[in-house]
């Protein structure tokens, strides 16, 4: 039972029910203040309530996303734990000078971009390949598609720690499957976790293994929405599957491919920490090819290294990342405004 018998509404205007009429009068008569809530109009009431609704989430965003932004000044400070961010001495661009001077930044930037390019290219080819294959089965084997997709999605659901165990099972020098296969074939076993040159490829394979299932979803959804009449016409003209794919499917997919590519390029300075830290088991010999900006900052943080310099590397990443994303978005906007982020 509602607390009041009648809600204020135009239909009830004439009925004098004490509290209701007073409330309703205060809603339409701006001179009368509603003493019950102190809010003087439904418009403000609505805005206030909606603000209240968003308040918890907004508070968390301000605290955990915006407050740290103030802390980027640590990049310009000679940070000392005892003094905290605000009392540590201001040293201007010295941290940056050191990072750029010793070549640290170049090494990790190169690794970051190089690995991301490998990931983007292989991911694109792999995801489209899977999407094309699954599309061919679409009309005949719906159930099998679900089974395949379950297997394809599985790697995405395990954590990077678990993946590091998986990789360890293969690459571990003594008991790893790969070395045992090598020995069986008469080849020399390799101490994988000490040889940095193999790891760009190892990490690419792992990244592909983990992401190709989920990655294929976008492309499959696009392919499924293509007009079947194109393919009918091609079949009429005697085009085989491969021709159909090359001349119809892929060109029609070009917009979405370009969008995905550009979005990935916008993120090219960022890396998945789990992949680079867990799968490599943080082995120092591998740093020359696997140390990226993310791991550099992370390691420095947990080993409590020079936080001023670490902050400088982090700021460098965030700033250039921002520039990249804005540029990429501008480009996307020129191509197809629907897909632009803003």
């Amino acid at each position, binding site marked *: 039972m509602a607390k009041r018998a009648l809600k204020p509404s135009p239909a009830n205007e004439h009925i004098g029910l004490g509290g209701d009429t007073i409330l309703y009068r205060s809603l339409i008569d701006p001179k009368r203040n509603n003493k019950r809530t102190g809010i003087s109009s439904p418009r403000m009431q609505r805005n206030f309530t909606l603000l209240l*609704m968003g308040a918890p989430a907004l508070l968390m*965003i301000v605290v955990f996303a*915006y407050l*740290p932004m103030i802390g980027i000044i640590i990049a310009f400070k000679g940070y000392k734990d005892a003094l905290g961010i605000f009392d540590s001495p201001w040293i201007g661009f010295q941290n940056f000078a050191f990072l750029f001077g010793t070549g640290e930044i170049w090494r990790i930037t190169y690794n970051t971009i190089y690995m991301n390019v490998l990931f983007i290219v292989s991911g694109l080819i792999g995801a489209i390949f899977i999407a094309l294959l699954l599309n061919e089965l679409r009309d005949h084997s719906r159930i099998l598609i679900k089974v395949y997709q379950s297997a*394809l999605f599985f790697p995405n659901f395990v*954590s990077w720690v678990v993946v590091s*165990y998986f990789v360890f099972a293969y690459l571990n020098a003594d008991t790893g499957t790969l070395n045992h296969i090598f020995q069986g074939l008469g080849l020399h076993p390799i101490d994988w976790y000490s040889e940095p040159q193999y790891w760009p490829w190892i990490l690419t394979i792992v990244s592909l*293994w983990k992401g190709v299932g989920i990655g294929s979803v976008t492309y499959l959804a696009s392919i499924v929405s293509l007009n079947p009449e194109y393919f009918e016409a091609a079949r009429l003209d*005697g085009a085989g599957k491969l021709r159909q794919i090359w001349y119809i499917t892929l060109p029609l997919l070009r917009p979405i491919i370009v969008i995905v590519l550009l979005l990935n390029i916008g993120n090219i300075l960022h890396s998945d920490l789990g992949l680079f830290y867990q799968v490599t088991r943080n082995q120092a010999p591998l740093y020359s090819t696997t140390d990226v900006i993310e791991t550099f900052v992370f390691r420095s943080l947990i080993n409590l290294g020079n936080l001023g310099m670490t902050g400088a590397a982090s700021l460098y990443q965030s700033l250039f990342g921002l520039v990249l994303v804005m540029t990429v978005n501008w480009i996307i906007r020129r191509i197809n405004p629907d897909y632009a982020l803003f």
Partner: protein
Amino acid sequence: MITTQSTFRPAPQPASRLSYQGREKINRGMIHGIMVLVSLMMVLPLIEVISVSFSQEQDIAKYGYTLIPRHFTLAAYQYIFSDPSTIIDAYGVTFAVTVLGTGFGLLFSSMLAYSLARRDYELRRPISLILFFTLLFSGGMVPSYILVTQYLHLQDTLLALILPGMISAWNVLLLRAFFSALPQELIDAAKIDGASEWRIFFQMVIPLSTPALATIGSFMLLMYWNDWSTALLYINNQQLYPLQYLLYQISSNIDFISNNATASSYNITVPVESVRMAMVVIATGPIVFVFLFLQRYFVRGITLGGLKGD
């Protein structure tokens, strides 16, 4: 118009012993073959890990990790369950963090998303901008770390595992897109009937939005369950180790599993390798079951997010 494939014949055809349907069948067979191979490659590592967990330690030392255990044994699991307190603690922590984080995160995110979806909300623009900017630029790991440890003093608390990642602008924007698709007339009608904003939200909008909530909820669930880096940064108390972080710790130091003396009662050395893999199986078990259920929500979420470009 073209009718069915079975009565269709393309006009110019290369001479071939097989009919069009025959070639189609072979093509499809090949595709199935490839897909089976790819699917196997996806699950093979899990099979190997399970196999090693049931293998005897001597076999592992001699023959390495194999796909099928040479001699089946439950020794690793017996070792773990002789003193499961560490694992039970870790499960408890992860479970609490995941349930609380996903529950509150979903609640708060959807409330914010709903407010941003309402076209008659005057603060809509500025708040959306505030939200959106966090996707473009972030303060980075260092200031966040300093904030959480030195200003909020959340280290070694459960909150440190829950709060930092709870609200993601991405999730809020996806939810907002969904709420925007709900007809405004519904809300107007409810308003005319005198319902308050809260009532509209909880009794009308939420029940209508279960697919979207399930999708975003799945994202959050997975994020919390698989999180290892937050604990690495903020947790030192062993009893607060979440599952994945425990797994990470034992990859180098097996003593974490149990510091008991039952190993001597077995009169064998600790079955290190098989115990490690058994831990992986125990830690991954639930997520594998859950994911089978959550799978379609993920697919939906990816499609929503990917096709729109945001």
